[in-house]
């Protein structure tokens, strides 16, 4: 695959680099793990395989060899020769075809999985791009014009399905399956989003007004946001007594309150430890909603219990297992 236009920010990410946080190595990985896993299931890849994470304005890519792909996440109007490429299903593309993405109206990030996976060297067990350290992914950076990505050969069990799809392709430069995963993200075009959270370790250290405001007021995502974290603006949240905190572990979804009282939601590229009070933790399933939100949108936090958060997590895992089994029926 050749990058003709890079788009706003396109990088290679998988489910993250685990096992090395004790050495200060961040997890990184995709912002929307749900969309990544479905994309991989659709092309018959192992779930954690690396994909292209496309942000807000998509790339123009030249597919140089016959390839089967799947596109999930936000709708960035994927097109081939002026025709819309359907999302959430496997698509077979013939060689020398240009796949182009536009800009997104709803959502923020799109995922492009390729059958066989991208030929990217794993660093510390992961193909994710660690931008700050300049390692992993495609040369440790976002993709730029002229980059060429190799695709690994597909596994034997993937071949029969690809052949089936290929047979349906008469004259067009792409063909998609008739079946698809119904878009599970439920992205609304509304400017207001609700994020479910559990209370953080330092929630009780905040004064009564702040505790109340955290759940009652809305916070806007500022443009000073990126894969490391979303900086929000809204009513300042203050501690009952100013406290110097020692650095402790933080993770994707931790909501910190720095001295200026404006919340920061830590995301995929966050550091392994932090020294600001943690007011709440985003429920893992809602990291998907966060990954698909953009600067300008308003966030309203809703409290749930740890039990509810865990139940939601398990429910999603069960859904993914169901999808996997269903796809297997169509593919085999």
């Amino acid at each position, binding site marked *: 695959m050749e990058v003709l236009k890079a788009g706003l920010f396109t990088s290679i990410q998988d489910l993250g680099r685990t096992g090395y*946080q004790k050495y200060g190595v961040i997890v990184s990985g995709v912002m929307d793990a749900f969309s990544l896993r479905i994309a991989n299931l659709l092309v018959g890849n192992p779930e954690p395989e690396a994909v292209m994470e496309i942000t807000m304005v998509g790339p123009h890519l030249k597919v140089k060899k016959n390839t089967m792909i799947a596109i999930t996440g936000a709708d960035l109007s994927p097109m081939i020769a002026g025709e819309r490429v359907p999302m959430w299903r496997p698509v077979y593309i013939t060689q020398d075809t240009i796949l182009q993405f536009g800009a997104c109206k709803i959502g923020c990030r799109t995922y492009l999985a390729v059958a066989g996976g991208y030929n990217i060297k794993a660093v510390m067990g992961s193909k994710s791009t660690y931008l700050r350290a300049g390692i992993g992914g495609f040369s440790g950076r976002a993709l730029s014009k002229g980059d060429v990505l190799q695709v690994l050969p597909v596994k034997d069990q993937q071949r029969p399905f690809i052949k089936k799809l290929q047979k349906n392709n008469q004259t067009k430069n792409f063909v998609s399956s008739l079946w698809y995963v119904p878009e599970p993200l439920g992205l609304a075009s509304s400017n207001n989003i609700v994020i479910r959270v559990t209370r953080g370790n330092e929630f009780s250290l905040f004064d009564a007004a702040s505790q109340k405001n955290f759940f009652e007021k809305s916070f806007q995502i500022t443009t000073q946001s990126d894969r490391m974290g979303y900086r929000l603006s809204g009513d300042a949240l203050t501690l009952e007594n100013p406290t110097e905190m020692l650095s*402790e*572990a933080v993770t994707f979804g931790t909501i910190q309150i720095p001295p200026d009282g404006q919340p920061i939601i830590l995301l995929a590229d966050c550091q392994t*430890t932090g020294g600001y009070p943690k007011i709440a933790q985003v429920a*893992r399933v809602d990291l998907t909603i966060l990954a698909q939100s953009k600067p300008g949108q308003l966030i309203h936090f809703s409290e749930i219990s740890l039990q509810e958060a865990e139940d939601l997590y398990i429910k999603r895992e069960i859904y993914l297992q169901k999808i996997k089994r269903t796809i297997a029926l169509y593919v085999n």
Partner: protein
Amino acid sequence: MIFSEDRCINESITMMPLGETGITVSFGKTIAQDIHRQVKAFANYLEQHPFLGMVEYITSFCSVTVYYDPLQVRSIAHKQTGGSGSLSYQIVAGILQEMFAMVNLNVENKTNLVRIPVCYGGEFGQDLEYVAAYHKLSVQNVIDIHTSGRYLVYMIGFAPGFPYVGGMSPQIATPRRSSPRLSIPKGSVGIAGTQTGVYPIETPGGWQLIGRTPLALFQPDSKIPSLLQAGDIIEFYSITYEEYQAYEKGGCS
């Protein structure tokens, strides 16, 4: 919150969730060698005896945070106990509780001494003169004080391979720069307040830079990608500019 008591010292640990996939075991609230020793002992035990469903752990000044997969934890517990539908947080807390009861937290950990060569001042240590003037010391005084310390690595965080270090002499403790630099070269040795440390990768930062080391603190292609680990003791020693160049050319670490 779950409390437990150490048999010997009669201290308690507290456990708190970090979302539904993490649990933080806290041994205290201050930077202290005995708290650090307990943290290290517990972490070592986890390293040797990971439980099923555990993803990884990380240590900080006073706590150990364990990350786990709720689905795995619940399914394994389900198989073992016939399924009581327990919250995976509670299951993990229970496992860690048992470990805590078994671990000897007062064992003296074998410490690893790491000597770090530093070329002080000049282009490598642009703030060395400022630090000296701030304390009304000579530049050589500052170097002597910095190199005479034995520094305990409490934890690795902030950046890959970056050590949070204790034991720096207050004689050279200097506040951060009022305006941080946009980019600090890899290997820079600095002071910020009572902390000293080395930048393992190029990042923006507000530390007072006093020198640079040719050692690579972050080694992404090694099995253990960090030169330093929590519990190591660091000593800095001064090298000349020529020795620095030779070190870099020789490529030894």
